[in-house]
């Protein structure tokens, strides 16, 4: 289960008197970034609408969104800080605290659950020596249990740091993934071929992708919850 456990339901208070986590001399947007924010603003009738793209940009730049970064975004958009904070805490993909370099979001919603996602989680926890929701001591990996990522046919699957999907997970595949990530090699974008394409054409219909996968019979499930 993800961090909030209904059996021991505890909601912590964020640090209300936070120490800045981004050095002061790094806490700014460059000219190009400010121009990008201007372009975001132009896409919508109100500045407030640009808060989501601006938060994405800030997360890309700083890795996560500590309070001072949310304040920076608020200032750039001329919005109240609380509005930015409220929006950021509503959406799970915005990291409110520092995570590992590689965040492994293991989908555990019902299709993945039925196809062995908890086995994947167990294997990763064992392998990395941390529980879901935690980060390894070297700051490299965070494991998270997340809700449906919209790739139910390739269950079990995971997403790396809000980026590429890794499909049809097996222990071997996880080993390879972790090893690659230890060498800072992100998994490539992988196109999953349509079964009908496999029957009617050669499978992969995209000449612009190097990596493909197919829908496969899901593995047996050991742990269900």
């Amino acid at each position, binding site marked *: 289960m993800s961090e909030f456990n209904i059996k021991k339901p505890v*909601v912590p208070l964020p640090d209300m008197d936070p120490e800045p986590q981004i050095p002061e001399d790094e806490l700014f947007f460059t000219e190009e970034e400010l121009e990008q924010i201007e372009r975001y603003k132009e896409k919508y009738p109100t500045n407030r609408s640009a808060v989501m793209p601006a938060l994405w940009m800030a997360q890309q730049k700083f890795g996560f969104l500590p309070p001072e970064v949310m304040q920076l975004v608020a200032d750039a958009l001329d919005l109240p800080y*609380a509005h930015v904070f409220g929006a950021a805490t509503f959406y799970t993909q915005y990291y409110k605290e520092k995570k590992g370099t590689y965040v492994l979001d293991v989908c555990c919603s019902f299709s993945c659950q039925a196809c062995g996602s908890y086995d994947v989680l167990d294997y990763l926890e064992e392998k990395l020596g941390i529980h879901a929701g935690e980060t390894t001591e070297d700051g490299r990996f965070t494991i998270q249990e997340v809700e449906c990522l919209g790739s139910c046919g390739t269950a079990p699957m995971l997403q790396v740091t809000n980026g590429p999907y890794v499909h049809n997970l097996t222990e071997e595949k996880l080993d390879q993934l972790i090893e690659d990530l230890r060498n800072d090699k992100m998994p490539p974008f992988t196109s999953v071929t349509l079964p009908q394409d496999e029957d009617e054409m050669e499978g992969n219909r995209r000449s612009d992708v190097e990596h493909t996968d197919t829908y496969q019979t899901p593995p047996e499930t050991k742990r269900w919850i």
Partner: protein
Amino acid sequence: MPTITIDGQTIEVSGDKPLLQECLNQGVELPHFCYHPAMSAPANCRQCMVEVGTPLRDRETGEIKTDANGDPEIQWLPKLQTSCTVQVSDGMVVKTHRTSEKAKRGQRDTMEFLLINHPLDCPICDQAGKCPLQIQSYKYGSEGSRFEFRKVHKPKRVKLGPRVMLDAERCINCTRCTRFTDEVSGSCQLTINQRGVKNYPITGPGETFDDAYSMNTIDICPVGALTSTESRFKARAWEMSRTPSITTINAKGSNCYYMVRDNLIMEVVPRQNIEVNEYWLPDEERVGWAYERFNDERPEHGPEIRVDDELTPVSWDRATDAASNALSSVSSDAVFFLGSAHATVEDNYLLSRIAEHVGAEAPKYIPHVEPGHGDDWLRTDDRTPNAQGCERLGIHPVDAEVLRSRVRSGEIKVLYVLEDDPVASGLFTAEELEDVVVVMHYYNTTNKTLAATDVALPAAMVVETIGTYVNEEGRAQRVRPAKVIKEVNRTLMMATGKSRTDMHGTPFDRWHNESHQVDCLPGWEILPKVAAHLGLEFEFSGPKAIMLEVTEQNPAFHGATYEAMGLQGHRLEDVGETV
């Protein structure tokens, strides 16, 4: 105007308000939490549910269909509706919990959900006794709970700002507080954090909830999630009496209730007056010093006169005698009367009458204007409650330079000060007043002019007296005694607010705490005593009669009788610059 039927009773309504408000206006109570008339209706508490139907119309003709009895056929909406979001339309039929089992069930169901994660810590909660959740759960909820799990544990004792404390477990997420800062005060300092059962209101980390109106969120919080850092854990709601009055820190005249226990002001809370402060009160009216000036800094010894350079307690008779002796001991042009924008219209009026009687020039008042303090809302640059009342009485701001030079030159030998502090105001230094006989009605021991005062007369404050103030917009409003002064029996004092113990308590739990009863008198009692020694007999039965005379004699106060002012005040006609 549309006509609607609520529980079989047909009524005419304004049509521009949501159904919930129309019901409340008709005296039909519907339980609700998130709805507040001054803010948008999010309909998130789901408590005010009713059944709603509209007359069925023929598709072709547009005529209302009728049944065999000639009554309109009603098409009922399949789901219960939140009455706060229903716009009334002509012919609408509404069934509340009073007639609909479905509505009753709906309200009870929501109440059960509201309480499952609520800590039910009423015995230690400041809101208990006045808590909409507590009250409505008794009235509309079911007994007991079917929830057998750990409640969600959320942050407690979070100091959101200097004046507001959060207990997120008590919160029912009605979002009144966040909507207040977004829609009313505009500070946008609060937001809801997280989502689902984990959510609660908070400021962004590192931000302080220092909105100048932050404490209104405490007032509108329908549970005890937001409490006052100042008054939490000090008094239970039922122990306090509640006196309708106005606040006096600025010239807005915001309507309030003074909450009193043991004859001490425990809390000041807003009182609705759409014409003045709507539902709100600025924080400045209810922070530390606002209480201290009512409670701790009051005179301990009653009236005093200076004997051998020491202020020495004496009886009221001796003190007022000394005051009148001072006034009659010098020629009338050596006497100067300072009226006061802190004092009531009645007291200023009596002072004017005395000045006139002794042949002195008309009193002047010390303006207390702090440019930039006002915010075009409920705070004003003027830090006094009654400058407008003084002006209308013909009491104008004192020319500080002129008065100072007249004091320095020895021209003025007696200074009669009504409820103010000329030294703290920078009018004089205490030394400059050494050779002047100073008679002063004063409120607090912190008064800097006391050092130079010869006759010190403790005056009843706004929370102890009866009288009239005129706010900057020309609205005359009454104040009522919230606490009683020495030798006055609270239960016999008709105008005083009563607490539960006042009304229903036994002699043992009724408070008789003499130590908190200040030995002071209202201006309308002191001034007639002084006047009597001067041969001027006021024959007023009380402040009400004084005000009646003012309204009859001064067109600037036309119509402002106590009856007309009532609880909402009386708007006086505008007068020109000079009265």
